């Protein structure tokens, strides 16, 4: 496990997280993330070899809904908060480049 999170690694995590980072943020996070991860490493002190992971506080079994249509949002409602839409579709920048 890394002792420090260097700036290159911070940029990599930013890319994975889909967050554009300024140089100032990279410098700040490089310092802070290392400090926080050092705290996380404390868990390595504990022997957990025979412990089952616990993903949920209440042990749940799968809940299945009836296979019948229920109430849902109208198209107009679904689009009402969209930053951009084109008639009845969400609009996004082109996904495939021109030089395919």
């Amino acid at each position: 496990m890394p002792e420090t999170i260097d700036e290159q690694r911070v940029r990599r995590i930013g890319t994975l997280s889909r967050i554009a980072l300024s140089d100032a943020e990279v410098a700040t996070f490089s310092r802070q993330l290392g400090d926080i991860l050092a705290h996380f490493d404390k868990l390595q002190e504990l022997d957990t070899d025979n412990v089952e992971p616990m993903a949920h506080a209440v042990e749940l079994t799968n809940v299945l809904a009836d296979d019948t249509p229920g109430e849902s949002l109208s198209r107009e409602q679904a689009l009402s908060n969209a930053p951009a839409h084109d008639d009845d579709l969400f609009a996004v920048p082109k996904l495939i480049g021109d030089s395919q």
Partner: protein
Amino acid sequence: MTDALDMTATQLRDAIAAGDVSAGEATRACLDAIERTDGQLACFNEVYADRATQQADRIDQRLAAGESVGALGGVPVAVKDNMCTAYGRTTCASRMLAEFRAPYTATAVTKLEAAGAVILGKTNMDEFAMGSSTEHSAVAPTRNPWDTSRVPGGSSGGSAAAVASRQCPAALGSDTGGSIRQPAALCGVVGFKPTYGRVSRYGLVAFGSSLDQIGPVTRDVRDAALLSAVIAGHDPHDSTSIDRPVPDYAADVHTPVEPLRIGMPREWFTDALDGEIAAALRRAAKTYERHGAELVHVSLPHSRIDVADDGALSSYAVSCYYIVCMAEASSNLARYDGVQYGHRTDQAGGDIVEMLCRSRAEGFGEEVKRRVMLGTYTLSAGYYDAYYNKALKVRRLIARDFQQAFERCDVLLCPATPSVAFELGSKTDDPMAMYLQDIYTNSLNLAGLPGLSLPIALSDSGLPIGMQLIGPALGEQTVLRAARMYETISDAADHKPSVTAS
């Protein structure tokens, strides 16, 4: 209308039903209180004055017609700004959702309204409920009504400060690692987080889905019971909500727990705890003992707090909690992509990845970025086992400690916070110091247990000290009754903060 502002929700409900106060008068008194004091406190992100007044007038018309108006008939309630309402905005105090208008209403809010509550508006919070001071709000930092140079705690700081300052008798908050109990403790009010799954999360903007829970912030335990009974229950819209009958918490809250065995976790009464708070808690324990309770020492080894030579604190529970909540946050907040709703940059040219990265960079504040990045990192290839999977195993050890403790006692009596309310700005440059504010509150979210914080004393500096009571899973009644016992037998006077609307 000062009188109405000083009433608890139960008192106000009864006064409205008796015709001593009208619902319209009560709501107008709250709206006026908000108008007068919120410039100083910044508790509210949005106030629904017209809608609330109409709602209240309708309650009065129904009362005049002889109809029954519900368990909260005419009581004004504020709602944290991460619960969707099909009216107004739901912003999570984030630039990302600054203009978001939810197309539906959260189940907990629907239930409040069905019980006759009047929704006053949305309260301020740390952005996406990530923080312990409400300083991470993109709107403004909320101030503590006891001392406006200090934080109200967080993330439900707006709800706690609004109830403490008498802008309203009750509010809803949400608690992922202490976000109801910690601000309640710092503002001198009651905050209750029910068992995970007891209250539907439908319409609560997701942060840490295995931890998040909605609960009430009130001025006494009776009101916490009243609101809990209204909002609890199974909801087909939330598959993690518990399908068990909801007891009428308010009806039996006055019945003492007899015999009452109170567990004191030895790991939480150490030098890491502020001396004044430790003394206040020991006095509270003695008060219980004088009234017949038995005090037993219990152990929560995996929630132990270690103090390094340089004074730095650490705890397995805090490390475990932050790994889990950040992992869940990174996944939950992936939905903010500038496509279906939320902020979209206008600086991206025509590239979709650049659009995503810039929209999120512009929409999220620093703390949210930190958590999403750390969550992404701990879930990434090569680190998943060392961090996330390890944390899930430690989570089970933490939960087992509680199970063993509850074999020997009915409730745990413990601190809610390591110190009283701190100065604004004193921890914003040190995220780890802020995370450690949750040191006594987040273990029980990992275990899914109910916990309540209630005010027990004022510090020498005149700031509230809270006591936390924790119960076993679905032990809401025991926690509420034990807390109400203390409220009844203690001489904790009805102190009022310096900024108060009444």
